[in-house]
């Protein structure tokens, strides 16, 4: 695998991102848990406004990788550069990354002791240091955007799974991130709720947000992704546009994976 494999010229949605700036650059990233190597020399570049879907069998290191990108986990070798900021122990860089990169979790992780509105405004007020009135106004807009303006005064425990996940997306967006990371955002949802969350994500992609999505929703990958990255055992196996990936993958392991899930 060499680096040129990871850059693209045209995209499926017809957008030409070839001269868009790089926003996430990973160079030879490795990570160990104890003596188990979870990531092995991951190298990839993601352009601004690009939507990348990461696929791979369970335990292949997808979550680990995207969690390294906003430093919820620390990589031990290699470099990760996000929006021109290298991820090191520098406090200022970490603060910067965290507010540039939004993250949505599989288990929603809403704050149960705060109302929906407070969940959304908490970080803008205390991290972005916004005036409270402004933050509330923004929260109302975002809740409108994700389609649940009427739930603002409820508590997370009173919402359905799909609604909770949409609140989580609004909470991440409230920090005005340049990049959004999604770690299996629909896996904990009932089938009828999946669509409402995916719709929000599609809107987001259309609006030009840079997105990195770990998901098992192949329909979403086909429709929205600019590029698909396939991982196995901590390594990137194959990278390509959705057409390339779903119609004639080059690697055997990819074929095997696709034959199992499709």
């Amino acid at each position, binding site marked *: 695998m060499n680096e040129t494999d990871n850059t693209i010229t045209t995209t499926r949605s017809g957008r030409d991102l070839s001269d868009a700036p790089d926003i996430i650059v990973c160079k030879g990233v490795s990570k160990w848990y104890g003596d188990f190597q979870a990531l092995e020399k991951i190298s990839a570049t993601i352009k601004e406004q690009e939507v990348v879907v990461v696929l791979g069998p369970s335990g292949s290191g997808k979550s680990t990788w995207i969690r390294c990108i906003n430093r919820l986990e620390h990589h031990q070798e290699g470099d990760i550069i996000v929006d021109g900021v290298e991820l090191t122990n520098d*406090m200022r860089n970490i603060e910067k990354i965290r507010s540039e990169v939004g993250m949505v979790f599989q288990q929603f*992780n809403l704050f149960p002791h705060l109302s929906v509105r407070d969940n959304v405004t*908490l970080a803008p007020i*205390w991290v972005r240091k916004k005036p409270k009135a402004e933050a509330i106004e923004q929260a109302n807009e975002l809740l409108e955007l994700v389609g649940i303006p009427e739930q603002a005064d409820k508590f997370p425990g009173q919402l359905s799974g799909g609604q909770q996940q949409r609140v989580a997306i609004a909470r991440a967006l409230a920090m005005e991130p340049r990049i959004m990371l999604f770690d299996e955002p629909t896996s904990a949802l009932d089938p009828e709720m999946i669509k409402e969350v995916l719709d929000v994500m599609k809107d987001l992609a259309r609006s030009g947000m840079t997105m990195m999505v770990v998901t098992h929703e192949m329909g979403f990958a086909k429709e929205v992704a600019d590029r698909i990255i396939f991982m196995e055992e901590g390594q990137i196996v194959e990278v390509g546009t959705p057409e390339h990936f779903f119609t004639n993958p080059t690697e055997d392991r990819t074929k095997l994976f696709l034959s199992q899930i499709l």
Partner: protein
Amino acid sequence: MTEIQSSAGVPVIAAPPQEPHLPPKEWLKKNLFSNVGNTLITIMTSVVILSLANGLLGFAFGSERQWNAVAVNSRLYMSFAYPEAQYNRIWFSFATLLVLAGLSMAIWRGGTRMPFARLAKSAYSFGVGLAIMVWLAPLSTSGTVKWEIAAGGLLLAGFIFNRIAAQDEERSLSSLTLLVGTLASIIATLWFIPYGRHSFIGDRIPQVVSEPGTVAFSTKLPWTIMLFVLVGAYYLGIVLRDRLPERRTRSVLMGFWLISPIFLIYLVLRDPAFTMNHVLYTDIPLVLGFLVVGSLILYALTKPSLGEIGRIIAMLILLAGFGSFLTPMRMIIRIFLIALGLFSLAAPTFSGDKSTRRRYSSIWSGFIVIAGWLITAVNTPSTVEVPGDLFFGGATLTLIVAFFTVILSYPLGVLLALARTSNMPIFRLLATTFIEFVRGVPLITILIFFSVMLPLFLPEGMRLPEVTSVTIGYALFSAAYVAENIRGGLQSVTRGQHEAAEAVGMSTSQKTVFIILPQALRMSIPPMVGHTIGTLKETSLLYIIGLFDLLYVGRSVIPNQTAFIGSTRENLLFVSVLYWVISYSMSKASQRIEKRVGLGER
């Protein structure tokens, strides 16, 4: 209940018994006489209980019992040797608390509705129980008749309630009405029955003097006023509740609850002839200076774009605070400097727009005013003149020590728990060592250590009253247990919560303050209530140290009065009942509240 039948004694595994309504006969059969073994057990336990009650009542009402010892000395029990001329202060404090209680009951909509059917049932069972007890007790004939009439009254009340319930199923009585009614009838008896005479402290050993007044007659007026204060405050609360915004009122009231004990304790202990010179010319200027300068510094430091310089300035202030120990200086300045350093260190956590910054500065102002006032209060000991060291004791001492233990140990416990669960090994090591050490040794050894050894560790010329040293011991001991309770709460906050907070960019301290602690504290409320009750019971160890707490008065002071030699058991029984009533009602009340608001569950 499960259907598995069981002979007596072997437990039926079942959910906490939830009795369906059975007719009395079937209920008896099911619960007492379901089979031979069961019947046997019923008979045996009844015999044991009856003979036990007989013995106990025989003890309690035997002719040689000196219950007078308790009644006469009720003043010693309550406040030990507090000068009588100053009693109005205690009454005033009590009235303040009652006003707060009345307001809170109205504003939080306290109390439950009790259907008359249930009231009737309890009146019946109390009536029958009382009748049996009177029958067992070795009372004089007139006494028996009197008490049996009381039991008959209860039965009659039950009958009336039953009739009301029969007319209208829905009729119910507020538990508050019942409470006030009961209190009112108890207070009413004060006007007719002369319970006990005064005792008073003449020398170090309190003596009984023949005085015309009795406790009942000298306190009947204040108690009646107290009742009216409570009821009045309740109705005032109802008026306020409907006029004012609810949330604001509640938080203001909470603030009053937090401040009032400190204020009232100070009020009770303050020297009436206190000169203000030192306060006017030293303390107030110092506090004002720190207030103004500190507020400005903090306002500057909470500026969001400040960056690392803020932290460096904070470290410098902190360093100055610790460095001040190397030079002679007023303790109050050192404490304030360190506090200012800590506040500045926390400033980036709370930085924000203008109003946020102003709020942070005003929190500092509030802190400095309360802290300054507390330090002044400690530095100006009361000189109310009484023989002996301490002029208050009994229940007052017990409550004050318990209060300060709780107040001091909770924040300390939270800090210890945070340190023990942090990812910083040295913090963890220090906290774990402290907690495990304290939990490994008995409280009494710690108390003895603090009463005997603490004076040795203090700089020359500095003297702490024994109560203070012992209270510090209590607080440190209690903090270790609080820390373990809080740690349980902290560990119940899922990893996802930490990650979500980090992912939206919160710093570690923001994550702790806004996300983790609120959830953890909520989870640990039930064990903390238990711990608080435990603390109250543990104050009885003051007896071993030799301070005049409730137990000391009951065990060593009163049984040594010439009039009441050998009344130890009566007094001990009284003390036990007092402790029992307080801790039992506290635990029951907290269980009810927990159930109502679903505390301790996620």
